[in-house]
């Protein structure tokens, strides 16, 4: 082969490798998406099947959704979860807003505090659950209850809420505030008219994430429930005991899942929307 032919052969080989690697990557991606969404789609399918416990999508029916309204044992846990989730969400929004707007500008101290907050992401739920219950219940003697659930959910959700605000706050140009101050605006005015609107996407996402993470939280709640039953705990108990409620759980979960998905997409789009102003 001449040198030129060798060259072309090498180039062609390179192209083939690239093409095959891309194919493998895309296939793996499809596998991943199926792994994630397969169960969700299947869950939805099962929730409208007559014989969900057989695992086969049977004749389609809405009977399980109808039964949701006759057997209402799920109602109380749902209400509890919604209440806790809302509280956590509001807590997250305010705290994340207060801290998130300051943190990018505080330098080294800010980094320390940030790492202290983010470190909980590296602790498994059960570990935090055990730690909290030993500390609060055993060492301090405080009985667990709603407050402990709220605390646990807040600790779990807060890093995400904070990150949401920080992402948006780091894009924020503090010079805008200087200009406003220059023009004569007071501090509250500055915050309300300039900072708040710009930070709002981050704060709202923080609220959404707080709500969702609390609503669907399970591992920490197991230890800190203190007699309270949240919806995930309810589903968990029913599922583990193979009870007859399971088909109803399918329907319920499908609804919650769909709602959560919508909220998540909303929150993510809020976070990453590029301002074109």
């Amino acid at each position, binding site marked *: 082969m001449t040198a*030129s032919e060798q*060259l072309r052969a090498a180039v062609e080989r390179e192209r083939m490798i690239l093409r095959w690697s891309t194919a493998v990557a895309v296939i793996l991606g499809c596998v991943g998406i199926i792994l994630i969404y397969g169960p969700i789609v299947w869950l939805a399918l099962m929730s409208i099947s007559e014989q969900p416990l057989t695992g086969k999508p049977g004749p389609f029916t809405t009977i399980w959704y109808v039964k949701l309204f006759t057997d209402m044992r799920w109602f109380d846990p749902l209400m509890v979860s919604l209440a806790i989730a809302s509280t956590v969400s509001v807590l997250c929004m305010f705290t994340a807003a207060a801290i998130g707007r300051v943190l990018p500008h505080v330098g080294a101290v800010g980094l320390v505090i940030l790492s202290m907050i983010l470190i909980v992401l590296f602790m498994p739920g059960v570990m935090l659950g055990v730690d909290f219950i030993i500390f609060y219940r055993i060492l301090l003697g405080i009985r667990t209850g709603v407050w402990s659930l709220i605390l646990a959910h807040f600790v779990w959700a807060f890093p995400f809420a904070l990150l949401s605000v920080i992402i948006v706050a780091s894009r924020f140009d503090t010079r805008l505030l200087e200009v406003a101050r220059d023009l004569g605006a007071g501090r509250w005015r500055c915050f309300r008219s300039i900072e708040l609107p710009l930070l709002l996407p981050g704060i709202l996402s923080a609220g959404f994430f707080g709500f969702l993470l609390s609503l669907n939280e399970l591992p920490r709640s197991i230890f800190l429930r203190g007699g309270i039953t949240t919806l995930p705990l309810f589903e968990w108990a029913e599922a583990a005991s193979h009870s007859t409620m399971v088909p109803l759980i399918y329907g319920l979960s499908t609804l919650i899942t769909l709602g959560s998905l919508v909220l998540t997409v909303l929150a993510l789009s809020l976070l990453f929307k590029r301002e074109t102003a």
Partner: protein
Amino acid sequence: MAFGGAHSNSGPILVVRSATRRFGPVVALENASLSVDRREFVTLLGPSGSGKTTLLRIIAGLDEPSSIVELSIGGADMRGIPANHRNVATVFQHYGLFPHMSVGKNIEFGLLVRGRPADERRRRAREALELVRLPDMFDRRIHQLSGGERQRVALARALVTEPEILLLDEPLGALDERLRREMQVELLRLQQKLGTTFILVTHSQEEALTMSSRVVLMNHGRIVQDGRPQELFEQPRSKFVANFMGIENVLVGRVASIEARTVNLVVNDRQFTGQLLTGFTPAPQEPVFIATRAERVDIGNGSSSSRGLNSIAFTSSLSVYKGTHYDIELSTPLGTLVSRQPKPLQAQEGGVALWSSDDCVVGPIDREIDLKGCRPQGRNE
């Protein structure tokens, strides 16, 4: 790793014929042809959007032309061969230095991917650092370097692979004035020492004049003029070239009559005479430009007038100090003309601007003269 190039030792090192590049409806490059000999220092000059960077990237292999007739480097056909298989290296405007590698490792990289052994890599990298006058920087991290130092590291990295052609994409753009001048001289010195063919892209005509033996001026994706810097400066082939090269006095008029290579033209009822550009034969009444450099314009009082001299009266002047001379801006009925003088002029004094018809050129407005200087484009090709 197979590399193309270095086949023949004679003949041009680069031949591009009819390269076109479209981005959707936008034509970034249109039928550009270029031939570069070994050891040349060529500059692709032009305003933004002129296609010069596009052409450079096509030579580098970073961009595929929409259509091209020939692209050979060192005699070998490079069409369809990607950048990593061409023996051509680029110094980017952004430098493209790897932040996770030290200076030395950055420079070694080209040799690493060619499979050279470690000791050879280190030796040649150190030599390259000596070449760009950064001998002690081997273990420094990239973020510790200043802009000028980074640029030299990028240069060393490209040169260590001993490419047949070194491409430079506005390498001096990010440097301050003084550094830029220093680097211009450096690049010139390097090129002459190594003998590598350099192709530089810039929008600064001053830079082009300083460094290269050959300037390729581009506009709107087409090559407008290709020649030695003096040619572009003294024999601009179109009004665009005249303006871009910084010729201060460019007027537009119509052809009145032609005698041999001298043409009489009329600008707003005034008569002027100038030299026709080689290869340019205007039609009667054709709109043309007449261009004169400021150095060639003299100032006289109203009394003197002689044959063969173009003249126009001015009513007031503004003398601008330029350090080594004064640029005198003269307000004439045809607009502002500039004359270069050693001493300033009294502002309110009137006078006459004079220049010889031998010192100005006349060229076409709406079309370009063929590069080889033979026939105007569009006529019996």
